[in-house]
């Protein structure tokens, strides 16, 4: 075990990220070409740590569209080839709440039922360098969800005025610190206690039972009326994982590829079956699916809430739909 505590001076941040990037693809919080904050592979860009990113870091693990298989047509057979995933990845500066979203993915893809080898390959080579929050974000409610401390991370970081406090949280994290020891300085600084309170709250006591009882509540109809089904919430959500599979030909009808792409329960076609039958036709039914999957359904198979309390869906919603308010209204009706 490493006994010393280290800080990464901000003047060394880029040197550190460059050194890491030699071994792995390092996703960092930054601005995208449209000015929105997100996580992108490090290429020398300015790092954004002032607040929560607009987009979640989930695209480091599950890209909006990713190739899973290549199918090569031969004269009397089809070659089925699993597309190899880029080995070695780090999500640098992932916030504690977002590490819980990764935990939800791990439970779903690696623990529940059959293991998904596609996710396993990506996850096995992904490191998490968590950056703890020292003040509340605009719409987060991590204290309500119990996600204010990071989980499953390899490094833990705390931002200070001129440096990042950094400590190993796993053996892989320890190896990294040893390897890049030259860029770090020894410190006497101790990890501070996190003593801020989120502005938003969500009462989670018996929430699943209460929401399940409120399946036919009028609240869904009222909120559903406003819902634009724009899917913004499912795009920015760190734990929304619903995907579809899609085959695409490569130029002709000989060779093709199979993609996994983000899907959204807010779209009508999400439940469309042969013969154009749609099981969730109304906006309210699709809003309910989103909220219930976050706060109730996921627990059945995976023993945790899918909502990790980052509040991004609230920040992004163009009509101000707020799942904490929906939950509170249903609680007042059915508790």
């Amino acid at each position: 075990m490493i006994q010393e505590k280290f800080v990464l001076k901000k003047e060394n941040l880029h040197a550190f990220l460059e050194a890491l990037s030699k071994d792995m693809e390092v996703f960092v919080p930054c601005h995208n070409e449209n000015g929105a904050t997100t996580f992108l592979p490090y290429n020398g860009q300015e790092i954004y740590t002032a607040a929560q990113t607009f987009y979640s870091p989930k695209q480091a693990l599950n890209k909006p569209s990713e190739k899973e298989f290549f199918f090569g047509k031969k004269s009397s057979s089809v070659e089925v080839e699993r597309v190899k995933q880029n080995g070695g990845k780090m999500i640098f500066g992932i916030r504690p709440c977002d590490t819980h979203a990764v935990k939800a993915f791990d439970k779903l893809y690696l623990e529940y039922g059959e293991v998904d080898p596609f996710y396993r390959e990506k996850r096995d080579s992904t490191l998490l360098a968590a950056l703890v929050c020292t003040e509340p974000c605009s719409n987060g409610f991590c204290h309500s969800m119990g996600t204010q401390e990071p989980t499953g991370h390899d490094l833990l970081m705390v931002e200070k005025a001129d440096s990042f406090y950094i400590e190993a949280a796993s053996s892989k994290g320890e190896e990294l610190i040893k390897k890049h020891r030259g860029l770090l300085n020894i410190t006497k600084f101790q990890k501070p206690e996190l003593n801020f309170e989120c502005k938003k709250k969500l009462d989670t006591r018996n929430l699943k039972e209460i929401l399940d009882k409120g399946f036919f509540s009028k609240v869904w109809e009222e909120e559903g009326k406003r819902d634009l089904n724009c899917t913004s919430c499912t795009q920015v959500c760190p734990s929304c994982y619903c995907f579809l599979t899609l085959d695409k030909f490569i130029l002709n009808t000989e060779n093709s590829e199979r993609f996994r792409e983000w899907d959204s329960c807010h779209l009508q076609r999400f439940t469309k079956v042969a013969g154009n039958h749609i099981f969730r036709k109304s906006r309210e039914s699709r809003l309910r699916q989103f909220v219930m999957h976050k706060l109730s359904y996921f627990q059945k198979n995976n023993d945790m809430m899918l909502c990790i309390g980052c509040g991004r869906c609230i920040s992004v919603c163009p009509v101000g739909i707020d799942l904490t308010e929906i939950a509170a209204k249903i609680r007042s009706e059915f508790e």
Partner: protein
Amino acid sequence: MSEKMLTEPCQAKIVKIKDEAPETKTFTIKYVDEALQKALHFTPGKFFMLSIFGYGEIPISISSSPLKTDSVELTIVDVGNATHALHPMKEGDIVGLRGPFGNGFPIQKFRNKDIVFVSGGCGMAPLRPAVKAIVGKRSEYKKLTLFYGCKRSDQMLFKEDLKEWSGVENFNTLFTVDEGTPDWKGEVGVVTKLFGKADLKPENSIAMIVGPPVMIHFAIIELKKIGFKEGQIYASLERLMHCGMGKCAHCNVAGTYVCTDGPVFSGAELAKLPLEEK
């Protein structure tokens, strides 16, 4: 089943194609890798994720008997992109199989009972393995009844089987169509209209239902009127799965996964599921 069989589309060859009804064909399929074919076993009601390479992967119920696993049959209507690409395919062409998935009908539990099959349209395909398995072990079950309704008589699937089953001892087969045609001499109307024409004895019966959502809904209501309890009713639900393993969430119905918890549900489970979400 191995991880490979469940998570990778495995090459399978179309060995036989049979025209079943307009725009409906039964494809007999064998894994190219014989070891996979040998490893295959399934209960009636399970489904495969079928790859038509380049066109997509779709959930398709197995329509052949679980007692015969040296090949599998998939009965498929030409209705979407993948099925439309499949239909012109020929014997010898290669498709991909992933699975089988789902729970299936627990027919072992139904031994020594009267069995009632209720089927609508292409719902006969997922039900056929159960009928075949039960007819194949006829002495283990009591009285059998099949109710089968279709839009038109030419859309009835497995006509040879239907003829054969009507000759099986103590097997009452009743048919109806929505639209009578000049050649149709039988019943016209919804499948539940047939229930009164069979001498059903609910006390020792099990009903298995496969069909469109509206048919399942009314079949359950009518069976309950006759005296069936929720625990005696089983129905198979349809959703468009993309993974088959409870991950993609397309078949999530109020937290229940049709792919892993189903597709077969007991009446008690169905009563808790909002089948059509308003």
